[in-house]
């Protein structure tokens, strides 16, 4: 159970399995990008997904909130199966927050407006309440004093923390992170990772595509290694790093751990 009252409240009454993927396949044209992926994520679990570029790891987590469509297999998120039904897709997206490599904040809105937009229009929350929630999470990511500024006036690390706060304002049950630190200056990586660690400690269910192995060691329950659209290795972090089984994993780890 979460220690954060707002997150805990969102968790109450949720199904036990956060994400269930059964035989998921996806093609981009002729290119077979996801090949028979099976994955189960329990509530409160933290998964780190890594792998070489083009291995399908981003596509995998983007399938979870239907930013990408899968063509074969089943994906059940928070008890809702993803199909062509737009209503269900919106339902899933309300419960799944996402942070992107390039933040994707809305440049024409202030930080506060970025955070209150979806709660007000999707959750029909009154403006005052939405602003209170937004300030709660902006304090959590340690930038409440930037609320009146525009995204363009913030540093990359600050923008990514706002993006995390914006996602949290919808009180999601699951958070997806798609390479949240790879577009950041080296000095700013840590502040974002610290925020994510804190979120993990609060008990959020998290799926992170990242190459930050320190982060993986610190918070992940499981590390998944993907290559050529398949999950080829899955283990708890210590075993994964100290004793990789697959040749491709060994090669990959030797490339990124100097």
């Amino acid at each position: 159970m979460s220690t954060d009252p707002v997150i805990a409240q969102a968790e109450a009454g949720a199904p036990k399995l956060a994400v269930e993927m059964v035989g998921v396949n996806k093609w981009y044209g002729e290119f077979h990008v996801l090949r028979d992926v099976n994955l189960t994520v329990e509530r409160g679990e933290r998964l780190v997904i890594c792998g070489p570029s083009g291995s399908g790891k981003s596509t995998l987590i983007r399938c979870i909130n239907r930013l990408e469509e899968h063509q074969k297999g089943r994906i059940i998120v928070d008890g809702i199966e993803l199909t062509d039904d737009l209503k269900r897709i919106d339902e899933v997206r309300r419960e799944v927050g996402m942070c992107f490599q390039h933040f994707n904040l809305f440049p024409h809105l202030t930080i506060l407006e970025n955070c209150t937009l979806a709660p007000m229009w999707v959750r029909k929350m009154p403006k005052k309440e939405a602003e209170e929630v937004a300030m709660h999470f902006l304090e959590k990511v340690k930038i409440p004093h930037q609320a009146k500024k525009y995204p363009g006036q913030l540093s990359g690390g600050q923008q990514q923390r706002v993006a995390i706060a914006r996602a949290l304002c919808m009180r999601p049950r699951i958070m997806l992170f798609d390479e949240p630190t790879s577009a950041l200056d080296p000095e700013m990586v840590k502040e974002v990772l610290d925020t994510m660690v804190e979120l993990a400690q609060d008990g959020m269910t998290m799926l992170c595509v990242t190459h930050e192995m320190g982060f993986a060691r610190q918070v992940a329950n499981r590390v998944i290694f993907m290559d050529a659209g398949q999950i080829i290795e899955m283990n708890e972090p210590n075993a994964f790093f100290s004793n990789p089984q697959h040749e491709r994993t060994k090669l990959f780890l030797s490339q990124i751990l100097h």
Partner: protein
Amino acid sequence: MSDSTSGQALSPHAFVSAAFREPEPPPTSDRGPLRWARAHLFGSVPQVLLTLFGIWLLYAVIPPLVRFFITDAVWEGTNRNACLPADVGHSVGACWPFIWAKINQLTYGFYPADERWRVNVVYALGALLLLPLLIQKAPYKRLNAIVFFGVYPVLAFVLLTGGNFALRHFLLGYLGFDGLFPAGAEVGGLSVAFWADFILSSALLALVAAGISRAVAGPGAGRGAARSTLIVMALLGVVLLAADVNFGLVPVETRLWGGLLVTLVIAVTGITVSLPFGILLALGRRSKLPLVKISSILFIEFWRGVPLITVLFFATYMLPLFLPGQLTIDGLLRALVGVALFASAYMAEVVRGGLQAIPKGQYEGAMALGLPGSLMMRLVVLPQALKLVIPGIVNNFIGLFKDTTLVLIVSIFDLLGAMRAAFTDPNWATPTTLFTGFGFAGIVYFVFCFGMSRYSMALEKRLDRAQRH
């Protein structure tokens, strides 16, 4: 150099700041007017030549203009004799008394003199409502917008035409069910047949809408569709009622409208209709639904492919041949619809350019938050896209404002048309009447277009300041 482990000894070329340096003001040598002139006007031989050419150009253009419009101009007089060089005794520039004599005709056309106060009220109300809408800090923006875009057009319509339209048939009547309603019966000047027809038609439309959405979107959707249909019909009812009630205003046919009045009516209608229509068409063109997409493309390409003159000509002289006998559409209204559709097609392409410039990440960011497609467009994509294309939008507005002069071709007398009519007055036949008239018309058009241009630039600056990157 003996100690190779010391940092300074790495290389004789290495430089490391000995102490932290405070910021200093920039050197003064590149400031001052002389420096500026040298850098910007006389920096090189071609620059010197261009500067000299510019000075010559100003010398060649400005003094003659000042001479014509101001120093040599005649400012007072009652007829052509005041502006004849032979009578005045020196060469004559602009003949301003001609404009003063014709100013009513230029402003109102042949609008009856006793009823011109109505036009003035419309002008004044329009300015009064528009100004606070353009000023960012003015309060009550939403109310102001509703009044300007919702109430004002109806008010202007009733005031300008006189209202009291004898409405006789609504949908059912035109479909041949007039027998259902008592013909000729009236309550307070309103036709019972029409309003009974209207209410019955609205109810039927609501039922049809409910049935369709039930079939398409499931049983829950029917009630909502019926309610929105009834709301739309109620609003239409209010508009029709305003047009139908007898306010005791003398009716003024649009044939009699003219001058600046017509120019503004066409331009303002075109502008306010073309922006929302253009946005819808641009969204339609990018839609994933093939039917919507194809019809948007057909619409846009058709109107872009046809000259405005053809459109106006067709609407005025050919359309009546295709319409059933009892149905006649007012001449000005036909031109209005033609101009509005034409402008919408252009606007659609401008807006599409803006939509294409919005990065995919913005769509994904909005989708990931659970915003449904319509809200994503309204709250995230369109505000950014429209801001990007403000120069293009205002470019279209300005083009449209000047294109209104083409209605002259279908015998509608806008400002330029009224001016040309005024030229034919033998009382004012002088050598410079023509130049004065066109000069004046040019100034009027310039004031409006330049105003729009400046406002759009201020708007861009303001929006830029807010979202500086």
